[in-house]
Each structure stands twice: as structure tokens, then as C-alpha cells.
């Protein structure tokens, strides 16, 4: 009898030990190391700072040699805008990426540079899935053609779930007619739970806008990792979760982030390194590809058209916060060509983000890089009141260096960026006289702005009159013509746009 009891107890303890051992074993079995590389934001293949595809290729090759199950996530932001993309709509980027073969690519608003249908076409050309979790095509009631809501990337026994979300600003910034942006927060929750049901070990969230729910989702492990691929966000306005361990921010172009994530009982980031791709050698094949594309653009656009007579800057911070000499040149040209009363153009039209040395040469390529969007010059009629509202719109995102900041001509504006949004314009004068709220002014701008792009919805709501003009010429063409006829650019700033705030 006692033997019987002893045996049972023994059996019981043994099973417990075995069970425990099994548990430990399974836990051990669940702990996998995910090697993940993130990169993004390389729209200009030959840009000195950010054109690093050849280096990226050799880096990826190296990492894949180290671990064949390495995951390479590309965060988009590259299909446009650039001089070459102006011609081929980003096909060359896809072609180059095809040679590097990321496992998935998330999309940012830049992927919409040439609108929805071109993006769909690129998706078909891509050797990897393009992910957009919260966009829907109004025309078909489903996701955009060619794009995927989410994906599970499988490597051996590792499954990585990937979600990519966009902010609804993309609609107004890129004037998308056919796209709806679904609520990112609920989509992320939905997709994350779906992917987990499909067996995803970790969920990676890709974003290009600092949504406020991200920190919370990371803490609650709704998503495991978050990857922000906007190299333009200013740290000073960054939300607190930026310092979260499982949050990765690619904050310089031409870089990549390598991370090793341990999926043991508690997910943790074992290692996270920011890699400057410049330190890597160039893959010959990829460089050949890059060069071949560059050659095609260069042979077309390497024409000298004049000289930068002074030093000019189109650095993002410059064109998006204050009066800019080159900006003046462009809007002055627009005003003159249309004989309008006033003109303005959003600072976001200027994409060069470079400094030009005095007496250096101007090439067509530079201008095509500065103004890669094929915006047309239009003239519309606005009342003083509408113009004031438009200017307030333009100054409403001053702090985050948004592209809507206006470069102006034909008027003098003083503003105070410290004031509340909607109350920032202090004074506006046209031809020396104060702005008349009821008077009609002829305003020259781009078709993009006139259609309400970049938050200028007041302009979209104006009734178009038959006196409005759509010039056959592109703004970039106009600028080139003007540079050629004047043999260069020699504008300076003249105090037409003054910020009374002491701060900046």
C-alpha cells in the first residue's frame, strides 16, 4: 500500500519535473534572435548624402552572409521626388531595390508623388511586397491595387509580421483623389491581432508620422517594434516614445539601423546600431545600375544654363521658415510671366535641400532636382480675405517645418510665429497699400496649391472663374527659361516676409 502511494507520488513529482523541463525547453525553443535591418528615405540615387544603394547592397549582402535568416525592411520614402523619377515615376528605384531584394517595403507619402495608379504599377514591378495597411481605393472599395495590407515574412522558423501606416495628411499634401486613409490606430490593432493569429512571432510597425498611440501600443505589446522612417522630423518636437527601447528612428538619410531582437519570454532588443552606409564599399553591380540610370538623366539634363551669382540655399529649414532668395527668384518669375498682382509658392516645392556656392554653375539637373514635381503655373482670383486665410494656412505648421510655408512675391507680409495658429499674420500689403479684404487680386501659384494642396483648402474652395489661367508652362520650365535669359540667378532677399518673433 505504502509502495503504491510512494510510486504515485514519485510519478507525480517526475511528471512535474518533466513538465517543468518541457516548459523550460519550450521556452528555450521559443527564444529566437531576429536580426532586422531597417533602411529608408533614399529618393535621389546619386545624392552625396543619401544616395547609398550600392553601399546598402553590400551591407545587406554582408548581413545575409552572417545570418541567412536576416530580415531586411525598407521603409520607403524613395519613389519620389527626384529628377529621374520625374521622368520614370520611380521605376528606377524599384529596379535597384529589386537587385537588393528587401523582404518588404513600407510606404510613406513620398511613394504617392505620382499618385495612386503609378504606385500600383510600381508594386507590380517590385520583387518584394509593398505594404500599406490603412489605405483604401475609393474606386474599388479595397486596398490600392498591387499593395498589400500586411505581410508575414517567414525565414526558417521565424515569422515577422509587418504593418505600415500613413497619416491622412497624405491626401491633402499629394492631392489624392481616389484614396481614403483609414484610422491608423484601429487598423494597427486589427492587423496586429490578425498577424498574430497567423503565427507571427513579432509584429513590426512602420510609420512615417509620429502618431501618439505608438508609445502606448509598444508598452502594451500590441506591436513589438516600431520603425519611424522620416529623416526629417525634428527631435525637439518628437513625442516621448522616441526614447522607447523598441522604437527605432532612422534620423539621417544614408543610414541603416541594425537590431537584434530576442523573442524570449519577454521581447527585448539585444542590440541596436545605427550604421552609416558610407562606411561600406559599393556593390559593383548595383553601382553599375545606379550609374546607368544616372547617365540617362545626366545626358538629358547636364546642360549649363547660368551661374549662381551669390550663395543660395534651399536647405529645408531655410525654405520652410523664412524668405529665401532663390524662392524669391522663382515666385518673381511666376508673377512676371503671368502679369499677376501677387504670387506665392509653397516652400515644399523646393526639394534640393542644398547650398549653392556663389559663382558656381547652374545646370538643368539642379533645377529639375529643386522642382521635380511637374506643377503648372496657374493664375486665380482671390479676395483679400481669402488671401489672408491662405497665408494663415501657410504659416500654420511653422514649427514642424512643413512644406506649406509660402515664398511670396508682389506683397509684403509680416507675421509672428509665436502667435496661435490662425493669428500669425500681422500685416499684408500689396503694391504699398494695405490688403483690401474685398478687392480681387490676381494670384499666380502652382496648380497643386490652387487645388488645395498642402493644406491650402481655402484656395480649392474658391469658385473658379473663366479668367483663371492655366499656363501651358511648368514652373520648373519657367525658372529654367528665366535663368537662361538672365544668364543666372542674382536675387537677394528684400525683407518681403518678416517674422516678428524673436525666437528664431
Amino acid at each position, binding site marked *: 500500500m505504502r509502495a503504491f502511494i510512494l510510486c504515485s507520488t514519485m510519478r507525480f513529482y517526475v511528471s512535474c519535473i518533466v513538465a517543468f523541463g518541457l516548459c523550460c525547453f519550450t521556452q528555450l525553443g521559443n527564444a529566437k534572435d531576429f536580426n532586422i535591418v531597417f533602411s529608408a528615405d533614399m529618393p535621389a540615387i546619386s545624392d552625396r548624402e543619401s544616395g547609398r544603394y550600392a553601399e546598402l547592397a553590400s551591407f545587406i549582402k554582408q548581413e545575409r552572409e552572417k545570418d541567412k535568416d536576416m530580415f531586411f525592411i525598407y521603409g520607403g520614402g524613395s519613389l519620389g521626388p527626384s529628377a529621374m523619377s520625374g521622368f520614370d515615376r520611380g521605376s528606377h528605384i524599384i*529596379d535597384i531595390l529589386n537587385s537588393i531584394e528587401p523582404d518588404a517595403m513600407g510606404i510613406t507619402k513620398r511613394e504617392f508623388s505620382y499618385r495612386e495608379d503609378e504606385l500600383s504599377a510600381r508594386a507590380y514591378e517590385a520583387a518584394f511586397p509593398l505594404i500599406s495597411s490603412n489605405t483604401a481605393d475609393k474606386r474599388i472599395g479595397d486596398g490600392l491595387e498591387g499593395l498589400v495590407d500586411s505581410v508575414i515574412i517567414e525565414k526558417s522558423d521565424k515569422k515577422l509580421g509587418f504593418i505600415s501606416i500613413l497619416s491622412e495628411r497624405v491626401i491633402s499634401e499629394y492631392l489624392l483623389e481616389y484614396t481614403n486613409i483609414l484610422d491608423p490606430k484601429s487598423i494597427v490593432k486589427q492587423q496586429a491581432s490578425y498577424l498574430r493569429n497567423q503565427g507571427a512571432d513579432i509584429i513590426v510597425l512602420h510609420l512615417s508620422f509620429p502618431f501618439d498611440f505608438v508609445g502606448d501600443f509598444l508598452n502594451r505589446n500590441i506591436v513589438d517594434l516600431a520603425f519611424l522612417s522620416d529623416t526629417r522630423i525634428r527631435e525637439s518636437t518628437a513625442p516621448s516614445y522616441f526614447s522607447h527601447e523598441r522604437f527605432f528612428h532612422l534620423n539621417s538619410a544614408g543610414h541603416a539601423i541594425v537590431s537584434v531582437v530576442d523573442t524570449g519570454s519577454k521581447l527585448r532588443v539585444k542590440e541596436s546600431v545605427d550604421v552609416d552606409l558610407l562606411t561600406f564599399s559599393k556593390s559593383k553591380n548595383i553601382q553599375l545600375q545606379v550609374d546607368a540610370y544616372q547617365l540617362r538623366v545626366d*545626358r538629358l539634363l547636364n*546642360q549649363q544654363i547660368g551661374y549662381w551669382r551669390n550663395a543660395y540655399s534651399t536647405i529645408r529649414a531655410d525654405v520652410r521658415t523664412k524668405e529665401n532668395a532663390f524662392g524669391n527668384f522663382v515666385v518673381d518669375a511666376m508673377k512676371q510671366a503671368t502679369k499677376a498682382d501677387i504670387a506665392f509658392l509653397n516652400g515644399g516645392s523646393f526639394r534640393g535641400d542644398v547650398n549653392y556656392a556663389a559663382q558656381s554653375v547652374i545646370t538643368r539637373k539642379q533645377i529639375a532636382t529643386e522642382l521635380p514635381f511637374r506643377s503648372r503655373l496657374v493664375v486665380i482670383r482671390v479676395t483679400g480675405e481669402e488671401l489672408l486665410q491662405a497665408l494663415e494656412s501657410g504659416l500654420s505648421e511653422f514649427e514642424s517645418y512643413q512644406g506649406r510655408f509660402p515664398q511670396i512675391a508682389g506683397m509684403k507680409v509680416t507675421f509672428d510665429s509665436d502667435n496661435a495658429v490662425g493669428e500669425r499674420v500681422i500685416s499684408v500689403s500689396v503694391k504699398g497699400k494695405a490688403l483690401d479684404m474685398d478687392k480681387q487680386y490676381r494670384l499666380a501659384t502652382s496648380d497643386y496649391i490652387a487645388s488645395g494642396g498642402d493644406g491650402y483648402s481655402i484656395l480649392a474652395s474658391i469658385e473658379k472663374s473663366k479668367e483663371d489661367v492655366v499656363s501651358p508652362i511648368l514652373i520648373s520650365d519657367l525658372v529654367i527659361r528665366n535663368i537662361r535669359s538672365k544668364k543666372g540667378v542674382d536675387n537677394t532677399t528684400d525683407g518681403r516676409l518678416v517674422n516678428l518673433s524673436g525666437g528664431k
Partner: protein
Amino acid sequence: MHKSKQKTIRLFIYAQFAILALFSLLTFFTLYRLLEVGSYFTHITNKTIPDISRSYQLNNQIEKLLTSTVTLSNVQNDSARRLMNIEVQNTLSDLNHIIFTNQTDEFLTKQIYVLAQELEELDVLVAKRISIEKLLAEKQSLFIEYVQSSFIFHELNEDNQAMLFDALLLASEIKQETRLHKLRRIETQITSKLDPVLEQLEEKSKHAEVFRTVKHRLLSEQGLLNLRIESLRIIGRAKGRGSFVRNLLADVARDLEYQATLSNDAIIQSSNSIARGTEKQTYYALAVGAICTVLALAIIYFIYRRIVVRLIQLKRQVDEATINQQTEIVVSGNDEIAWLAKAFSTYVKRVNEQESALLNMTLSDPLTGIPNRRAFEKYMDSTLAQARRHGWYLSVMLIDVDSFKPYNDHYGHPEGDACLRLVANQLSQSLGRNSDLCARYGGEEFVCILPSTDAEGAKYKAELLRQAVEDLAIEHDFSNVSAVVTVSIGVATFKLDAKSDVEKSVFLACADKKLYEAKEGGRNRCAYYSKLPEKE
């Protein structure tokens, strides 16, 4: 005189020049405008219209090139590709030709050059795609053949059958799949189906061989999957090139359109400015024309008043002068015409003077036609001299019409003149002898010279004359002598010789005294003296 007197002429000349100048100016401006309009039309004909038609042609060619490029990108076989390529090249060279007949834009040249390059490269790409697709099709059919011929399906166990079946299903998707990343997935999936089986099977067995071959044909570098991937990548690149070409063409078209707009605007502006200029010019022309007309009328009026009217005045006065013996010809003013008037005046005066002078030089009495006093004087002198030389007798008679003044008063001067004429005629005729002279001595006084006539003869002759006049029977109701016109005659006869100093005046004085006697004696009679008067 000349300077001030030439004012009218000068003024006239200036006025003419003024009109000429104004009309010349008018003509010049009109001509200028016409030339401008002419050159504008020439410009339109030679440049604008050809430009517009070229623009149209270019647009057509660009459209054509666009569609050809798209078709070229999508051709399914080599012959179609070659055909499309020829069409593309032809359209391109047409485009070239149209553009270069008139363009010197460097960038446009480059664009077209790049376009040509891109199209060539596109053709190469399309050729590559077609060859890969051909290869793919070939390999596909070979694979199917192989699968059908070498299959030992039933010899495999169930699991392996399933795996193989799945793998073949996946393989069949390769041809359809158009998305690269899906193909990669298929690759992974096929691998995951075939590898486990291969591991199981004995390496050298026939089945293993088949499975290896299947895997190789599907997944190797030159396998169906990678060929398909390659062809998709090429399609992607071709699309990229297609976009490139399309946008390049759009750039070219837009540039040309803009240039056309500019030149259009220039033409419209220039035509507007010509229209405005012409309108202005027309107003000026009308104004100048009106001024010229008014000026011309003013000048005509001026000429009329200053020249024509005064010339008529002059003519009238000259006529009058000729008719009326007036010597005063005056035309107001200070110029050539006035001077002409003065000249005329002078000449008329002179003519008159000369006429009288001339008159005075004649020897006939203009009224009666018989010799005048001068003639008498002359004859008297010569007869006297002759008579002295030859020692002849000489008689002189003074004859005076009786009561001539009453005759004149009552019958009028013209009658008086007529009477005198009759009397003179009668006296002349009655004298008869050639050497006898009867001359008119004064108003109604006549004088006769009778050379070689003594007292008897003179007496006879005097009586004869007296009777002859009386026989005329000219009615004279106011004569206090008779009912007809009569004469009284005083005769003086002297014998002359070389020594005599009887002058003409003696004769006349004597005859006059006798005439007076005759008058006193009752008129209509003769009184005679034949002796030398006593020297008292």
C-alpha cells in the same frame, strides 16, 4: 522796292510749300503705315502661319510617337517589334526634320537626341524581353514534356506524391504570376515541397534524379522561375523607359506649345499695336487732311483777294485808261501788282504825252482835216521866202465864221464841229489852185495863203470864197447877219522883193485889221489891203 514788293510772291510760294509739305507728310506716314502692315502680313505669311502648321504637324508626330512607343513596349514577337521599330524610327526622323528646319534651340536638340537614344535602348530591351519569353515558352513546353514522359507518379508514396503534386501546381503558377515578390514566395514554397522529398530519397535513385531535374528546371539560374523573374524585371524596366520617353515627349511638346504661345502672343501684340497705331494714324491723317484742305481753301481765297481781284482791278483801269485817256491807274497795296499799276500809269501818261506830241507834230487839223496852223506857218515861211526871192505878189486871207459862238451855243458843239468841217472843206475846194493853202488858224478862224496872187486876184478869190460859204446854206437861225452861215474875210496883199521886210506878222496884222473892218462893216463881206502899211 523789290524786297517789300515781293512779299506776295514770297507768301504765295511759302503757302504752296506749306501745302506741299503737309500733303507729303501725310503721304509719307500713310506709306510708312502701309509698309509696316505689309511687313506684318509678310511676317505672318512667312513665319507665323508656317509656325502654326508646323506646330500642328509636330503635335501629330508626337502623338504618333507616343502610341508607337507604347505599342513597341507591348509587342509579343520579333517581327512585330521590327515593324514597330521602323515606324518609331520613321516618326522620329519626321519629327527631327520638322523641328530642325527652323529651330536652333540647343536643349531641344539634346532632347531629341536623348529621345532617339532612349528609343533605341527601349528596342533593345523589348528584344531581350521577347527572347526571354521565347526561351521561357520553350523551356516550359520542354518541362511539361519531361514531366509527362519521365513520370513515375504511381511509384511514389502518397506523401511524396502530394508534395510533387503541390510543387507542380506551384510551377504552373509561375507563368501567370505577374508580381515579383509572389514569385519569390513560390520559389520558397516549391523548395519547401521538393527538398524534404529529396532528403528522403536515395541519392542515386531514379526518383531522386527526376526530383532533382524538376527542381533544377524550375529553380536554377536559367530555370523557369528565374527566367520569369528576369522577364518581369525587364518588363518593369521597359515600363520605366516608356514613362521616361512619354514624359520627355510631353516636355518637348509642352516646350514647343509654350514657344508657339509666346510667338502667338507676340504676333497678337504686334498686330494690336499696328491696329492702334493705324487707328491713331488715321485720326492724324484725317486731322492733317482737314487742316490741309482748310489751309488750301484759305490760300485760294487769299490768292483770289490779293492777286486775282487786284489784277482785275488793274485790267479794268488799264482798259479805262486806254479808252478814257485817264492817266491815273492805282491799285492799293505795296507789291508787284501795285508796282505794275504804277508802271502802267506811267506808260499811259507817256503814251498820252507822246500822242499829243505826235499830234502836235502833224500838220493836219484833226477836226477838219485841212492843214493846221503849223502847216500854215511853215508854208507861209517858205512862200514868203520864195516870194522875196522871185519878187512875187503874196496874198494872205483871214477868214472868220460869223456868229460862230451863238451857233455853237444853240446847235451844240458837235454841230459846230460839223459846220466848221463843211466850211473848211468848202474853202479848201474852192481855192482850187495847188499852191494855194487854206489852213485852220484858230477855233472858227481860217487863213489862206495865195502865192503869186495880186490884189485883183485876191479880191476875186476872196469873193469867191465868201460866196461859196454862203452857197453852202448851212442853216443858222442865230446869226445876226443872215439865215445861213457866213464868213467875214480880211485880205492882205503885198509885192515882195529881196529888200522888203514885210514879215509874216505884218501880213497877219494887216489881214486881221481888214477882217475886223469886214466884221465892223456888217459881216459876210471882204475887206482888202494891198499896200504896205505906213511905218507908224
